[in-house]
């Protein structure tokens, strides 16, 4: 597929098991994946397919049961909590579905939060670029409660970009937004890939959101079952339907 030089993150033989005995659930089953640098990758799959778990493991938010996860050239499975935390702070950006912002901080403080935690001075020029790209210049001193849902997600995107992380993980970033705000946020994410070479991994179940990505990886029952380059919403939808039937022979085709 791609050479190691252009891989931002990867997993080999990644297995994640929750619980024991009767309650044992295999969330990820021997997954191999490479996240290409400078690309926008979407991870898709039905509920319970393991797509969020995959993201959490890749981002160092959750421990793995077996296998390795590499970000840059660091094996996350060898890191202690403190090192993992530092790695998240310096190398990784996050955009969550909801509750992305600290309510007591204003928009600007939220954007620079990871930098402030690290105690590093923000790169002023880059910060201006990011703020202008998301179009929040006039809203910087507003508290999150004074911003719309779309604006809040744009602040979250700006925060994720502000520290120039190696990779941004977005977990259903448009899940709570109306379609217009969603399109704005997705457009911004795509532009940061095209214009600034940012690496983004987005978990979603929305074919329309997935169509903004350059590559879609399909997950079902904890395994990667397919992938698609340069997707459109229709192709993704088709694929989803088809793979529902193929991948889950007894599943409800409506799901």
């Amino acid at each position, binding site marked *: 597929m791609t050479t190691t030089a252009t891989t931002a993150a990867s997993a080999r033989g990644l297995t994640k098991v929750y619980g024991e005995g009767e309650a044992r659930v295999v969330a990820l089953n021997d997954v191999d994946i490479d996240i290409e640098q400078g690309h926008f990758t979407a991870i898709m799959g039905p509920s319970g397919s393991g797509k969020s778990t995959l993201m959490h493991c890749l981002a160092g938010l959750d421990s793995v049961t077996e296998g390795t996860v590499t970000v840059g050239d660091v094996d996350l499975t060898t890191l202690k909590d403190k090192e993992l935390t*530092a790695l998240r*702070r310096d190398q990784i950006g996050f955009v*969550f579905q909801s509750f992305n912002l*600290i*309510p007591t901080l204003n928009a600007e403080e939220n954007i620079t*939060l990871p930098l402030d935690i690290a105690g590093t001075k923000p790169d002023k020029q880059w910060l201006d670029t990011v703020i202008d790209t998301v179009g929040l210049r006039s809203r910087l001193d507003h508290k999150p409660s004074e911003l719309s849902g779309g604006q809040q997600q744009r602040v979250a995107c700006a925060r994720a970009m502000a520290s120039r992380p190696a990779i941004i993980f977005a977990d259903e970033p448009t899940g709570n937004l109306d379609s217009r705000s969603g399109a704005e946020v997705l457009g911004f994410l795509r532009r940061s890939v095209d214009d600034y070479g940012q690496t983004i991994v987005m978990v979603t179940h929305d074919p329309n959101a997935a169509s903004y990505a350059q590559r879609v990886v399909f997950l079902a029952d904890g395994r990667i079952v397919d992938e698609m380059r340069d997707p459109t919403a229709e192709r993704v939808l088709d694929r989803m339907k088809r793979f529902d039937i193929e991948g889950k022979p007894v599943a409800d085709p409506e799901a």
Partner: protein
Amino acid sequence: MLRAALRNLFAHKLRLGLTALSIVLAVAFVAGTYIFTDSLRASLDTLIQQNQPDVTVQPTAADFTSDFQGGGQTPTVPTDLGDQIRQLPGVTSVIPQIQVTNVVVLDGQGKPLGAEAGGFGSGTVIGQTWTPPEVNPSEIIDGRAPSAADEIALDTGTVDQLGVVVGDAVTILLPSGDRQEFALTGTTRLRGSGFGVGFATWDFDTAQELFLKPGQATSLAVLAQPSVSQGAVRDEIVPLLPPGAQAITGDEQASQVSEQLDSGLGFLNTFLLVFAIVSVFVAAFLIYNTFSMLVAQRTRELALLRAIGASRSQVLRSILAEAAAVAVLASLIGIGVGAGIARGLQALFQAAGAPFPSGQLVFEPRTIVVALVVGLFITLVSALMPARRASVIPPVAAMRDETPASRALGRRTMVGGFLFGAGLGLAVMSPRLAESDTMQGALMAGVAAGAVLIGVLALAPELARPATAVIGTLFRGISGRLARGNTRRNPRRTAATAGALTIGVCLMSVISVLAASTQKSVAGIVDDVIGADFVVTGYGFQPFPGKVGEAIRDTAGVAEVAVVRQAPMRAPGTGDTLVTGVDPVAIQRALSLTVTAGSLDDLADGDTALDSDTAAQIGAGVGTTVQVLSLAGPVDLAVVALYEPAGGLTGYITDLPTAQRLGTSDEDSVVYVVKDPAVPADVVEAAIATAVEPFPNVQVLDQSAFKSSISDQIGQLLNFLFALLVLAVLIALLGIVNTLALSVFERTREIGLLRAVGMWRGGIRRTIVIEAFIIAVFGAVLGMVVGVAFGALLQRILASQGIEEFAVNVPQLALFLVLAAVGGVVAALWPAWRGSRLRILTAIATE
């Protein structure tokens, strides 16, 4: 609905625990106060009721000497009166008794026992005679009763302190100043209680020889035949009594003592309850805060109940039922903890030198009722407002996912502002009122302070924003910024949490300011009034032998010795008091007294000088004759001078011969020494020290040492009051734990987000600890400002009572602030630890 409320209760053990703990502590103090006084009462009752003679014959002067330990002659009755009484029909036996105060037990080094510890009346025990068990409140624990002139028995406490055993020799310092050695024959204990009063016991003949003259006893215990009533025996005795003696039946004596106990213990109970109520008030804040937060967190749950058809009143009832269940449970636990508090109070009083028993604890049904009522009342009142707020939650709130925003503060601020203003107004007026009536003025100032304090507490949410911003600037970095933001997010909550601490710190500051002002004023009085170079006092301010003054008078370098002798007396205007005998010439050299009328030089036999306050009260002036009741009976005194009370000198002053007629013994209360100006102070002091060496129960103090000895006494009282306020402060700190623990719970997702974007666990902990610090310092500073202001006001009001100067003990107040801050930080440790242990994924998981 009730089942839902109860199930909810047990589903959240942590919340239950935190809420309950605050109720437990508040109830515990109230219950502990009652248990303490009831137990004290029970111990005293057993003491009064058993081993009472049927009739006691005692000097009438005993009516007004009982309040004063030491000083003056010991009033006596003749023993041959006992022989006459014994002849009466119906009387089976008459037992002469001797009881004297001011017997000093010396330790191995020849020092008064425990003098180093500086306790009240160090080494001083009651001297008494061993009597038959029918009238003896004590019993022998070990060995036997003393029966010869060189034998003594001591109470177990004193024996333990001395570290001696039966058979050892013990040395006693007698009121005459002589030392005498006795063989210890046994150890005694008061029956049925563990009172810490010390007793030295001799046989009658020995005690009479040591303390009285032949033919004298301090009382006669009369036992009657069972068929004869106490009253009948008394009526037979009365015609035989000489002047100055009286006969009291056992029942009369018991009811007299009982009455005194009722008023004494009632006062003690009220005094302690004041502190208990402070704790209850503080706890109410905590409970209110907890329920507010619980309701806020359960908005969705309550809205869901509304959505599925629960009525408003059902929601209201459900919250109140939950509160009531917690209250009952916590109150019951509080009664148990109250027993511990009662023990603590016993220890506290014992440490302060009060000989209170540590006997069995008494649980009256009244205690349990009061505890339950207090617990239920504060909990329901505190929960009512949050519950009403909960009941108006619209069902649609169940669908929304947001923590409720803090509401506008308008009405609360208005009420707070009004109370604050009204309180200030009263405060400004109170000193004027105090000029005419100190009590009324103090009362008004108290009301003013209460209004200001409640006003400030109501205004606290408004103050919280600017104040936390200022305190928060101490902390740089993201943790500081986040902590500051958190304290300002819900000013109402921050204010309530801080407010609990405000109350405690306010009261401690008031006491601190009053104590510092008193100390400074006393020091000022010492400077102004005491011209003497040295002051000689007994340990624990007990009287000491007149030989001390004589020895000092013969010392080189001493120019003047002014002795002060006192005796109990009942007099117009002062009630039961002490008459003070001085040499008019010597005392004017030792003290600078301000004489407002007449002259002290005119003080001759049969005259008195009266302080101007007492004179005004009884309408006396120079030339008036006043009749007083002395140990020797009624005496007329001619007023020849009026003086301003100063330096502990108040009431009736006479010359030494008159004082002796009124009943002073040859013991001195204080000796003032003026040195020869030509001799250096340290030389004179050393000479005096050598002169008083044979008298280990006196201390020679120069002016500064005298000042600091008084300051130390005030300091001791201060520590005692602080100890009573500690619980209120602890409850307030618990409030910080509570608020933060619930805040951490509320901010689970926020903390998860911070962790996700790279904050270390240490950073989370730091944020929470800083938040606690800001809240604690805010509360403490607020309390201190109000407290110091109120202390200043009280000082002005009490200026006429001798607290003429205002002083602030800055290091002490700074210590309060540091302790509050440290307490806040410690309170935050557990919530901070919990916050830092939150699992990121649980925290950020979308539902």
